[in-house]
């Protein structure tokens, strides 16, 4: 199972190579893998239909319970089969669609990687692994949408998809981890086995919101529905695969998967129905408003996703069955229609509905596929789409549910009926229109997939038992989390659902007839409205503007601002705790000691002069005096080595400073006005005062001088030196000294480096100025 999931990645990496070797047949070569995967997954159909579930697990990060565990039940198997089956044709299709394209290999690589991600997503049992694949689908989708990266619209769409689904993904991560914590397990199979644990947990609402964020963004639910149509900038194979058949259903998959654990509560029902219903209607309306084949299909995909969420939200067994049936149907007819749209585009150079007509004779296979798929989509018998739609109405009309649900479903379905006919029939009938290219039928690869899917729509409608027992039934049972009787059939008598279907067809036909007018009317109505797509732009602008203003406020470029903030923080850190805890200082009147007092006074004076004097020479000298004062403090308190060093260092500092300052023409005026002077002085006093108080507090208690006693005892006897300080430096703590001389050496190197480039720079400048003179 792991191998099956990872194989597409491995093959994907090889795809560019395959392309180089196999040339235009790369699609055929690479399609072998998904085809093999179909066979592989098909072997589980029997056991799963028999009620079994299978688990496969490989350790990943054993210490933290993260494993590559896979779980095959009706739901995941349905998805896995759809992914690999449709994937087979998509790979073929892509090979032909992008024939001769320089980056075909790269494209197929992304596509196969996406396939692997999607398989991993639907098969994962571990929440972390699930999330890993979830994110991978976002990334591969980003790369695929941006495939035509020279177009700004593609880039925008790719980034938009990434931002929306990536953002949702992060929420999902939090939700999944919260769920894992609440349920005490990492495996979904364990977590969902007893849903009450989650539903009764205080974090339930948080988990729900976070998971829904993930699902809704991925499955393009209102108000995140805008990214999906934009993603149609991608080449059609991508649209057909990711944005109709598979990836966008990941959110639906997630909701379906979580249903046993998170579903069944009031908030779950209401939220899903409201968002799903709104998405259904909005998507359908937007579909009708558009005239671009792909966009229309995309919007109906949004609507269908809404319908699926809506059905899962209802949560009753019939609704669940309806959801699974519709999902199954949708994958086939929508995949087919996208490929048809792509072939038409490929063959004519346009996707504008009102420029296309009469292609039926020129593109017979494509037309057949389109017509069959459109019939399934429009929900007419004996196509599987009809069964799915019937079950939708069964679900909404299920005992006791408000009628408004059915009304919503009818509205959506009617709109989709119209779109189905517009897309699946309109281009192929009538007189040939005026298209950029001379229309022609594509190669086998371009129509075989669409035709197969379309025919299967019919097949599964006719043989509903197969779909029921192998696909929809086990999936519904998995979603429902309980045993349920599933029985799909074409004709169940003239009951309420059939009435609803008739109403649907009637309204749909009307809309199809008035298609152009409806589209124009909707355009007038919708286009001026503010929508989340504009909102996205505003969001991006706003976040960057916010970033700029925050950054501009903080990172001003002025060193003294940085210093100011730093010292304010420092002052807060040393002043506040002492203020709150009280200062533990006990002031003692210092003994009168002439030497100490005069030395301190000298240091004081030197420091003060450094601060206030405006002549650089005197300031430097005062610095020297201050340093000497400190040296004398060391001398007075028994630190001759320190005094020695301090004197040397202070003098050399003064010398070097003089050496340098000679070359600086000005001292640099202190521009500070009285206000800033006061402020800066206050900060200085705060920091200095607090540190002094801290020092006094600390020196108020006795110090454990065990270390120094140790040194005193061993300095001569074991280290053969009478000067304890020096013995510490070269023996007891020689490592400090080693680091210290490294600092000295590196300081030398750094200074050399600093000065090495001054000549070069001036040379550069002269070259540059010469260059300016003689352009």
């Amino acid at each position, binding site marked *: 199972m792991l191998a099956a999931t990872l194989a597409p990645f491995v093959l994907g990496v090889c795809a560019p190579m395959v392309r180089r070797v196999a040339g235009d047949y790369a699609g055929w070569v690479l399609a072998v893998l998904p085809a093999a995967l179909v066979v592989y997954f098909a072997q589980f159909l029997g056991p799963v239909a028999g009620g079994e579930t299978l688990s496969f697990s490989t350790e990943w*990060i054993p210490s933290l319970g993260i494993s590559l565990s896979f779980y095959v039940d009706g739901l995941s198997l349905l998805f896995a089969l759809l992914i690999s089956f449709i994937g087979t044709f998509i790979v073929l299709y892509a090979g032909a669609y992008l024939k001769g394209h320089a980056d075909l290999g790269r494209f197929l690589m992304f596509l196969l990687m996406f396939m692997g991600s999607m398989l991993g997503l639907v098969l994962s049992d571990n929440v972390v692994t699930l999330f890993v694949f979830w994110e*991978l689908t976002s990334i591969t989708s980003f790369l695929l949408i941006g495939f035509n*990266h020279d177009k700004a619209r593609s880039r925008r769409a790719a980034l938009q998809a*990434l931002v929306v689904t990536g953002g949702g993904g*992060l929420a999902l991560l939090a939700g999944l981890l919260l769920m894992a914590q609440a349920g005490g397990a990492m495996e979904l199979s364990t977590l969902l086995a007893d849903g009450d644990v989650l539903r009764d947990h205080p974090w339930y609402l948080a988990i729900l919101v976070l998971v829904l964020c993930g699902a809704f963004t991925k499955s393009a639910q209102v108000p995140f529905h805008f990214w999906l149509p934009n993603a149609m900038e991608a080449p059609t194979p991508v649209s057909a695969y990711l944005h109709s058949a598979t990836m966008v259903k990941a959110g639906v998959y997630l909701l379906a998967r979580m249903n046993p654990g998170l579903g069944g509560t009031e908030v779950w029902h209401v939220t899903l129905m409201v968002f799903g219903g709104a998405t259904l209607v909005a998507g359908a309306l937007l579909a009708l408003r558009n005239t671009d084949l792909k966009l229309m299909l995309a919007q109906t995909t949004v609507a269908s996703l809404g319908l699926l969420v809506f059905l899962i939200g209802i949560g009753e067994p019939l609704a669940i069955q309806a959801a699974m049936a519709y999902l199954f149907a949708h994958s086939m007819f929508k995949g087919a229609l996208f490929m048809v749209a792509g072939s038409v585009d490929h063959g004519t150079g346009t996707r504008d509905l009102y420029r296309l007509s009469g292609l039926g004779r020129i593109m017979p296979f494509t037309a057949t596929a389109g017509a069959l798929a459109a019939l399934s989509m429009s929900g007419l018998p004996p196509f599987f789409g009809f069964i799915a739609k019937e079950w939708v109405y069964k679900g909404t009309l299920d005992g006791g549910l408000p009628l408004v649900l059915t009304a919503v479903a009818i509205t959506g379905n009617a709109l989709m009926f119209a779109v189905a006919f517009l897309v699946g029939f309109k281009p192929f009938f009538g007189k040939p229109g005026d298209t950029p290219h001379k229309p022609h039928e594509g190669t086998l690869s371009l129509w075989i997939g669409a035709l197969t899917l379309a025919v299967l729509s019919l097949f599964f409608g006719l043989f509903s038992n197969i779909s029921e027992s192998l696909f929809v039934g086990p999936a519904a049972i998995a979603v429902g989390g309980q045993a349920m009787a599933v029985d799909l059939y074409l004709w169940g008598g003239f009951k309420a659902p059939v009435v609803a279907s008739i109403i649907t067809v009637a309204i749909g036909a009307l809309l199809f007839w008035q298609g152009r007018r409806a589209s124009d009317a909707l355009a007038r109505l919708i286009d001026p409205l503010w929508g989340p797509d504009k909102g996205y732009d505003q969001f991006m602008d706003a976040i960057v503007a916010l970033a700029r203003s925050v950054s501009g406020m903080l990172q001003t470029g002025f060193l003294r601002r940085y210093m100011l903030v730093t010292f304010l923080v420092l002052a807060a*850190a040393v002043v506040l705790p*002492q203020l709150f805890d009280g200062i533990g200082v006990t002031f003692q009147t210092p003994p009168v000691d002439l030497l100490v007092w005069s030395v301190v006074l000298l240091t004081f004076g030197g420091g003060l002069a450094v601060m206030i004097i405006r002549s650089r020479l005197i300031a430097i000298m005062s610095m020297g005096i201050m340093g000497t004062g400190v040296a004398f403090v060391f001398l007075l308190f028994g630190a001759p080595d320190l005094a020695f060093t301090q004197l040397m260092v202070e003098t050399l500092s003064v010398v070097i400073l003089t050496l340098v300052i000679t070359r600086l023409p000005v001292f640099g005026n202190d521009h500070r006005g009285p206000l800033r002077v006061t402020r800066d002085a206050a900060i200085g006093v705060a920091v200095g005062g607090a540190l002094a108080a801290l020092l006094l507090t600390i020196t108020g208690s006795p110090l454990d001088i065990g270390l120094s006693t140790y040194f005193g005892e061993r300095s001569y006897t074991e280290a053969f030196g009478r000067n304890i300080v020096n013995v510490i430096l070269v023996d007891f703590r020689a490592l400090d000294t080693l680091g210290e001389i490294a600092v000295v050496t590196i300081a030398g190197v750094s200074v050399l*480096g600093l000065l090495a480039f001054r000549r070069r720079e001036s040379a550069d400048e002269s070259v540059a100025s010469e260059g300016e003179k003689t352009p």
Partner: protein
Amino acid sequence: MSEMAAWLVVWPVAIPLIGAALAITLWGRPHAQSAVGLIATALQLVTSLALLGHVWANGPVAMAMGGWPAPFGIAFAADTLGAGLTVAASAVAMAILVYGLADTGIEHRRAGIVPLLLALMMGVAGAFLTADIFNLYVWFEVTLISSFGLMVLGGRREQLDGAVKYAFLNLLATTLLLIAIALLYGMTGTLSMADLSGKVAALPADAPVETIALLFLVSLGMKAALFPLHFWLPAAYHTPLPTVSAIFAALLTKVGVYSLMRVFMIVFPDGGEIAREAMVWVAVATMVVGALGALAETDIRRVVSYTVISGVGVMVGGLAIGTELALLGTTFYVIHSIVVSAALFMAAGMVARTGGGTRIADLAGLYKGAPFLAVAFLISGLSLAGVPPLAGFWPKVYLVQASLEAGQYAITAGVLVSGFLTLMLVGRIFALVFWREAADGARAMAPASTRGAPPNGGAVLKGALGALAALTFVIGVYAAPVVDMSARAAAELLAPDAYIEAVLASPAQTAAAGADGPEVRR
């Protein structure tokens, strides 16, 4: 524990030290210096791997320098955290040195880039391995002065400008650290972190432990570039040579973070409550400010600089939570960030080289022009954003989990929001710099010849960058070793008994000395 094994703690520091010294002695002979540099970094990597292996098998290992036992002498000690970070640092340094030798001109090598890099590595390894808090300060300074030298190599105007801000602010930071250490010594009378561990806890209630802890937070936080003490980083990281930016981003802030971990887990395991509380909010602010800063920037190197900051927020966030899982996440994040920050700056350097500039508005067309670079950049960037299955994903998972467990929801939010902003950022940069075509208003990718191809050919650059990008991928996919290592490190941080014992008991053979021994002491 055998004496030779204890030497393993020394080699990762001693080797670059000897290498740097030798390289400086060979002043003016850049080729010899380069050879010394390569050999030294390779040896450093080998010895630190051996150290990690030893620590993994036998627990913390320590050596008392000069045979003077801690707390009297200075001890080096490696637990899993120290050894692991040393390995990560030396591995990345190796890649950076290789990159640097190919990327920099002979004049930079003449000016001493090799000894400076080696000295930086010595300082970093020293900081990771020392068990003495004053010695830690010394390694900070070694790192700092080497970074000064590296920062100004080339002497361009913006470098000098950036270096001024960088130098003064960082000098302030290390001075504050020294003040904190001095006051800590004034309270406890000791400098060994193992010894401090007990002595701080035993201080009377009225001792100003809180203030000292805050002082450590301020000084180390400044080194780590925590908000609002991070200014030096965006002011300067984008100005030096790409090689230098890469090693800075990889290592400097991590040393600060590492030291925060050490100080707060060993010296102030209890106490420092105010500092810990502050750390939570500071960490969250750092994540967000860093991510926003990156979004605001128009220069690709500055963008990368800011991402370093938000990463620091994430790491310190984990430390602020302080649970085992959180420390695991932090440790993992440090390792991840070492790799990926270096990779991103290398990539930025190559973008500048091939794209002819660093202004995002001017860059375009590199997806076609430099596909390898594009892939490496994308992998590194996505890893930074925490996208699975790259290395950056795992620490994010653990930190989110840990913060949820601990009820630190602000940190959860911070991690997620900064991750989101980073993802947005990476996607945007990728779209603009790599995907966008020159026609869309940006400058066309100039032919490589006008900018002077790298002296040793681009293959070496690609190799170094590719190695790091591959590393972040491999660590992500094959995460178990790093997770196990981080888990062990976290456990050891929370229960540092073995570390403390190793430090305080390091030399067994100290006492056998005496002035009357005729030839050799000890």
